[in-house]
């Protein structure tokens, strides 16, 4: 098992190196001048020349790449071309907001998706199942931006009960000092006992949270249902039932336990997808997370920032894959 995990980690590092090398090369090949961007929109030739030396762009590609990797190993992701701030600091500012959203979506996927899948399997081909399947299919297939705008229109414009966007009401952010422990506002306000801030942050979280959670809820529900249906036909389930064990025990303990392997894998992988999904949702809900950061970086061809987010996303994906692999490996039926 240890050997297996080590092998997976090693493989992950190789993949990560590949991602860095490819992204770095692409950013150097695209016709654009980072030095001009560094100086400003009306850079003169002299300014650009100075910036080229300052940024080390006058060095051969391989030396630039070597320096990038060496800096990276020291936790230095370079400076954003647009803001002139260290990319690592910027990521630190933006990541918690996104992580908060992704965690909420994942939590919802688990607490809503799994029971939905279980009931759907239990009442197979009955109205509850049809309804649940309709919801699951809808949840995975509705375009995110459409859901987001629709929710805003209903709950902000028409019903006026939920905020349009942002993480916190302007009045509150102006009048009170926001707690900052992890950067995740819900958690921080809760542990510091600032319930008014918690309430406001929670209300702001509802619409983006639902929008982001829809896909993983649908996915987890469908996965749980199909895994469970397969297991419910197994002989040991028939045997358990014939022993007269209560149906609840059979379903929630004997069957569910064995179906959780594939479901966990799906949950782990859907976190990665959810992360990408937030990129669009953040723009619509003015959510100051990493999604908005990367879209601005891409539009502005801010290479160090693009590299930073790419590396972050790759690390998250690799870690999730590793977790999924470990979950599978933990199943005694699987040989690794």
């Amino acid at each position: 098992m240890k050997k297996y995990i080590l092998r997976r980690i090693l493989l992950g590092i190789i993949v990560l190196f590949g991602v860095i090398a490819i992204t770095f090369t692409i950013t150097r090949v695209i016709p654009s001048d980072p030095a001009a961007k560094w100086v400003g929109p009306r850079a003169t030739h002299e300014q650009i020349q100075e910036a080229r030396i300052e940024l080390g762009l006058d060095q051969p590609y391989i030396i630039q790449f070597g320096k990038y990797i060496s800096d990276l190993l020291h936790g230095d992701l370079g400076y954003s071309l647009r803001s002139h701030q260290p990319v690592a600091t910027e990521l630190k500012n933006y990541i918690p907001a996104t992580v908060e959203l992704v965690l909420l979506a994942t939590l919802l996927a688990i607490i809503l998706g799994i029971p939905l899948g279980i009931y759907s399997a239990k009442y197979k081909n009955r109205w509850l199942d049809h309804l649940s399947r309709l919801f699951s299919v809808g949840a995975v297939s509705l375009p995110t931006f459409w859901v987001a705008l629709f929710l805003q229109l209903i709950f902000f414009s028409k019903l006026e009960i939920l905020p349009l966007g942002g993480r916190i009401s302007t009045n509150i952010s102006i009048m009170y000092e926001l707690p900052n422990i992890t950067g995740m506002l819900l958690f921080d306000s809760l542990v510091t006992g600032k319930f008014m801030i918690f309430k406001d942050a929670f209300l702001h979280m509802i619409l983006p949270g639902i929008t982001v959670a829809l896909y993983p809820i649908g996915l987890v529900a469908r996965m749980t249902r199909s895994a469970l249906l397969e297991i419910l036909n197994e002989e040991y389930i028939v045997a358990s039932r014939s022993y007269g064990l209560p149906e609840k025990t059979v379903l929630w303990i004997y069957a569910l336990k064995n179906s959780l392997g594939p479901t966990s894998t799906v949950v782990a992988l859907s976190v990665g997808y959810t992360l990408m999904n937030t990129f669009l949702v953040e723009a619509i809900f003015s959510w100051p997370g990493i999604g908005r950061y990367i879209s601005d970086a891409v539009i502005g061809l801010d290479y160090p920032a693009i590299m930073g987010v790419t590396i972050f996303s790759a690390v998250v994906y690799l870690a999730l894959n590793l977790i999924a692999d470990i979950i599978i490996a933990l199943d005694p039926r699987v040989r690794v």
Partner: protein
Amino acid sequence: MKIHMKRNLMLLLVMILLVSLAFSGCGGGTGNGDEEQQQPVSIAYYATNSEPILDWDPSVMFSNGIIVLNNIYETLLRYDAVNNEIIPVLAESYGKSDDSLVWTFNIRQGVKFHDGTDLNAEAVKYSIDRTMRINKGASYIWAAVKEINVVDEYTVEFVLNYPAPMDLIASTGYAAFIYSPASVTSDDSEWFSSGQECGTGPYMLQSQVPGDEVVLTKYEEYWSGWEGEHFDKVVIKKVTETSSRRQMIEKGEADVTINLPYEDVEAMKDNEDVTIELENSYINVASYFNTQKAPLDDKLVRQALSYAFPYDDVVEFVLGGYGTQGRGPVPKGLWGHGKTLKQYTYDLDKAKELLAEAGYPDGGFSLLYTYMSGDEEEKKTAQLYKAELAKIGVDLEIRGMPWDSQWEMSKGDPEGRQDMLVMYWWPDYPSPVSWLYNLYHSEEEPLFNLGYYSNEQVDALIEEADQKSASDIAEAEELFVQAQEIIVDEAPAIFQYDKINVWVENNTFKGHVPNPAYPNVVFFYNTYRGE
């Protein structure tokens, strides 16, 4: 089984009760701990479409951060574009030598920086010297300055290498800010990056969420005082989605926004809670011909293609009426704009005639036209133009490209360059020289003269006019117009349109007078909440 269900139900009820108790107990601003009742404050809310500010260093910032910095920092002078006059700010008065080579500014007394120190001549010298040393952003506006001398505590003198309009330059919304040397002690931007500032402006930085929101609070010691109606706080927040910005204005959540799609502006026109304010901006759009490559090296062909451009359709259908056809390179509203310049009109017969004269009776050539991808206005304009050119036998390939790629292409090998390139332009300081020198003055290596236009007479006129603008604006204006007459005749570009900025405001938001010399800026000190 039933007992289980009951127990679950009870648990759920208790949880709901707890959560609702927790929420109801802390509503209305009467919380616990440090959440005690606060005095009511008046807050202005500006929803922008880009990051409020990216670079906090006032010597370096050269983008939308102009909105934030112009409320925190001040310049020696300010240009009132509406009345075409210079307003004293940190300089109470100024004068110049007869040869316009020495400019003296008398610094206002009793002004305090946000760090509590006094403004004096030394601070002015330090700020501008530092901007020039760093040599980033718009620092090139000070290119004429040879040295800055402190004459006495409140007098500072700029000695120039050649005459330059220092009054206009010192009014620039970028790279002309004065800050406290007591706080800023080095040329690197680290002190600013850590979220600090040291201006003299009416507002101080209260807090920020980087890339998202900036909150400003009033500076009690502001030299102009706080009598009358003003906002206590200002929020400048990025709201990318246009539909969100519209809803925020409609619901009164935001006070002011800009850059909404024209369809939204039209739809909001009848809303009684909303005020639409139009501003003749200094932003204009032109497409530059590659004047070094056949067939566009022929003036007749360029004139023909200028006659084939559907000016009225673009203004009506692309801009929704919020723009005007360009008349020469300098936009309407700015001094030096040629009111009597020749204007090309949409006339396909004339275009065909000129093409025939140039030896292309049936057109028969293809051109590559590049525009900035993602810019709907540029894209639609390109499509309309393509359709018109097809009618005179010219095939236009239109290609959307990121600005950087487009720019790199145009600075590259002459044969590989695009035939036409669309570009916005706006001035760093309010002078026609920004357009004429950058876009039409000969360049050894292309930077922004992307039509590669070169005419010695035009060069001489631009240089002379620029120097004259230091001493005699009227004469400078005349020379600038003369240069434009030649440019318009030689048609190195199609002067597509001058943009009208549309400000959408909550109608309780009063006192805002848009000033095109400071794009997108609201000087919040002048605004207040009214009925």
